[in-house]
């Protein structure tokens, strides 16, 4: 690239950035916020970011900022979505099968019945695979070994209650082994489980086809079965069904809108999503990420979610994850008890020593209390005001009180600095970087 072309590009990027900043002010109807209830890097985050790109590049939405609310298989994001976004017509959250599992496993007080389903977007089949050097040559080998000694087969996959464990449970159930006896080893994140599978730490691995595909092509892993109903075109992996295991399973992802939106909002969101899934950018991305197009909306979607929920609930019950007691070899309660006993013992000893030391009387005396109380007042006001009056006011109050605690001679200077810092950080976070602040 010549330097002139570089200058042109740089200008384009700069203009793009400025446009990004300036359009944020105009609450244009074309703004669509996307919430990924997971940390950056996962499947839901990828879905949201691919959507962002498709929506913006195709001009379907002028601006589509992505916000991550990670945790607990998306149930933290779900609770927050229902609470904070009620009746907002300009926001969508990525959801899917794993969230159904999370709702059951973590006994979430809110469920997918509390939100408005907009569309099912993509699906991914699961693959059962072993390292190339594994003695298990076929699914039959696996089933024979598993039936003989269920505990000797360790199944490595994603988080507890997620799609990988659900499939392990379905397979065990189908071949007549109590799903509770599946020795499932949960890993967090794709890299961790994949390295355990590649390194032969676990006997077999379960993961999405897209994640396994590169390893299968390179020959480092051998696929035993895929969870689709029929063989996929161009993919030489036998299905579970054709090998006598009557299981069909797919990890689907969908979009939901907050409760309480008007029918007009709902219709608009549905049409935006429909336009997006038909766009070339989206179609290209599907191929690139090996996602299957599973677009579904309306009543058919609602029925689909209901059947899936019943299925997930029943298999997780059989697996015994979550609140029901699990038959794991090292129970989850032993270590916490050890730590709590340690804390109490050490704590009592430390308390006894503190009681006798002179420091206690120093703390109890009122010296030093005034500035501390001022900072504490600032903090309490800050926490109280943050969601009621907004970040700028809350932060200004906090700054001002803290500054006054250290030196009370410059109230005006402190106030000006407080407002300036708070405003600057607000503009930077909320406007330039598109991260929401109260």
């Amino acid at each position: 690239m010549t330097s002139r072309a570089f200058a042109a590009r740089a200008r384009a990027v700069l203009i793009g950035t400025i446009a990004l900043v300036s359009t944020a002010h105009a609450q244009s109807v074309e703004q669509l916020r996307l919430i990924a209830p997971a940390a950056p890097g996962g499947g839901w985050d990828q879905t949201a970011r691919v959507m962002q790109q498709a929506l913006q590049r195709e001009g379907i939405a002028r601006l589509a900022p992505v916000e991550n609310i990670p945790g607990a298989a998306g149930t933290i994001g779900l609770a927050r979505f229902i609470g904070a976004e009620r009746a907002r017509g300009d926001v969508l959250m990525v959801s899917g099968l794993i969230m159904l599992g999370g709702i059951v496993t973590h006994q979430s007080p809110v469920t997918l019945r509390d939100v408005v389903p907009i569309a099912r977007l993509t699906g991914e089949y699961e693959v059962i695979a072993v390292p190339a050097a594994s003695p298990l040559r076929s699914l039959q080998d696996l089933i024979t070994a598993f039936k003989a000694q269920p505990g000797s087969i360790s199944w490595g996959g994603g988080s507890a209650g997620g799609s990988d464990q659900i499939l392990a449970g379905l397979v065990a159930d189908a071949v007549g082994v109590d799903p509770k006896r599946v020795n499932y080893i949960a890993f967090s994140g794709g890299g961790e489980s994949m390295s355990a599978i590649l390194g032969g730490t676990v006997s077999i691995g379960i993961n999405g086809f897209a994640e396994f595909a590169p390893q299968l092509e390179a020959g480092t892993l051998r696929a035993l079965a895929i969870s689709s109903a029929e063989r996929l075109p161009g993919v030489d992996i036998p299905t579970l069904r054709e090998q006598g295991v009557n299981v069909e399973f797919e990890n689907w992802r969908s979009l939901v809108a907050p409760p309480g939106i008007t029918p007009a909002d709902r219709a608009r969101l549905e049409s935006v999503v429909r336009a997006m899934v038909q766009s070339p950018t989206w179609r290209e991305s599907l191929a690139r990420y090996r996602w299957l197009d599973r677009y579904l909306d309306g009543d058919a979607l609602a029925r689909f979610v209901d059947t899936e929920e019943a299925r997930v609930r029943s298999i997780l019950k059989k697996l015994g994850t979550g609140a029901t007691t699990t038959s794991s070899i090292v129970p989850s309660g032993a270590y916490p008890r050890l730590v709590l006993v340690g804390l109490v013992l050490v704590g009592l000893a430390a308390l006894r020593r503190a009681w006798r030391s002179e420091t206690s009387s120093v703390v109890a005396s009122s010296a030093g209390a005034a500035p501390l109380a001022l900072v504490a007042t600032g903090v309490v006001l800050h926490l109280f005001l943050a969601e009621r009056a907004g970040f700028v006011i809350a932060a200004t109050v906090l700054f001002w009180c803290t500054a006054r605690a250290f030196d009370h001679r410059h109230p005006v200077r402190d106030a000006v600095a407080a407002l300036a810092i708070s405003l600057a950080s607000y503009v930077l976070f909320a406007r330039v970087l598109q991260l929401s602040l109260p």
Partner: protein
Amino acid sequence: MNTLELLREGFANALTWAHLGWAFAGVTLGTAVGVLPGIGPALTVALLLPITFTLDPISAFIMFGGIYYGAMYGGSTTSILLNTPGETASIATAIDGYAMARQGRGAAALTTAAIGSFVAGTLATIALTFFSPLLASVALRFGPAEYFALSIMAFAAVATLLGGSLLHGLFSLFLGLTLGLIGIDQLTGDARFSFGIPQLLDGIDVLILVIGLFAVGETLFQAWRYGRQEFEAVPVRGFVGMSREDWKRSWKPWLRGTAIGFPLGVLPVGGSVIPTFLSYTIEKRLSDRPEEFGHGAIEGVAGPEAANNAAAAGVLVPLLTLGLPSSATAAVLLAAFQQYGLQPGPLLFSSRPDLVWTLVASLYIGNVMLLVLNLPLVGIWARVMLVPRPLLFGGILVLASLGAYSLNRSMLDLTLLYVVGAVGWLMRVYDIPLVPAVLGLVLGPLAELQFRRAVAISEGDLSVFVTRPISLAFLLVAVATLVGPWLVKRRR
């Protein structure tokens, strides 16, 4: 073609004025966003990647390299100047870095961090260039038993950080371990100690604990001391860079930090807390003046900063050779590769060698750029310490709030931050060390999880920890760390 030729070709692709411009833009943006509290490297990269999508693949990859290293680098600045680490990688830096800044040696701390990052980043990138496939295959031999042994070794190292009073140190450690119990048990999905509050299901973020204890606790403590008329004289010397002695004390920690950080970064269960704190404890043990640690020892900044940058390069080894994203940041990068039709996985190197080698070359370039960008900025940043104390502490609290809230967009986190801050104030008053609590929160859950995984895989057989050689070696080192000093003392 051999590695050198491929690398040369990569450099040939990367070394044009336009590409250097993109590399500079990448490191600048990466540093600028990475500096902000509560925005870790993963989010920084995710936020900035859309900018690269308008570019051709080679320019984009060069910018990736810059953004990645820039984001990793940005965190140390707020750690040193404001005691507010922006990400887990710079927690260890805050301990002595902030102490140095308070003594008017902020510029020296920032300089050793910048040069240490450069040295570590470059050496680690060289190791990445030549030994990736070998290292990746070794990393795959690490299973739960090895990770458990590794965390036990890290626990043994904590013993040196317990501080003057064993009782106080243990109290702090158990406090951290207890906080670590909160949240979902990963193996079963059980919620533990979450008291029905959904936001607690994911546990307490280590950054909430760190910013609360360090930044908020310190502000409260200083306000309290101000009220008691105990003034602390802050010698303001403005810009004082590294003295000859600082150089002498820094270069070995840089190299040792690299040697620790890089291999640990390669492991798929990475995290940057273990490498940085291992480096910190090793520096403290090897130092002639261990008493200076915690009160502004430059080794305590040089070592961990080198370790954290070397680990960041190490993360790229499993990513490029096996397609394994071992950190959230790596997962974001992996997704970006796919945008350019790069198939992440073991065939990455052979399918598009041009792009991969350009990326590697741009890592070298990004490192140089970071140094060029940051050394002149040191003088400007260091002047933050000239801000009047009332405004400085006011600013620290606002940034702490901003950071805590941005992590998960949760009001509960914000409230917790100040509760932890109050605890931090009390701990300071009673002279209870803060660091063991942080390590307890990080290491406790890791040790428990890996122990239970290992035992589940072996069907209850506890001997796995001593029959697997790597695991046994770590455990022996742990025992030696604990018993060694005691034996030496007895012989004297």
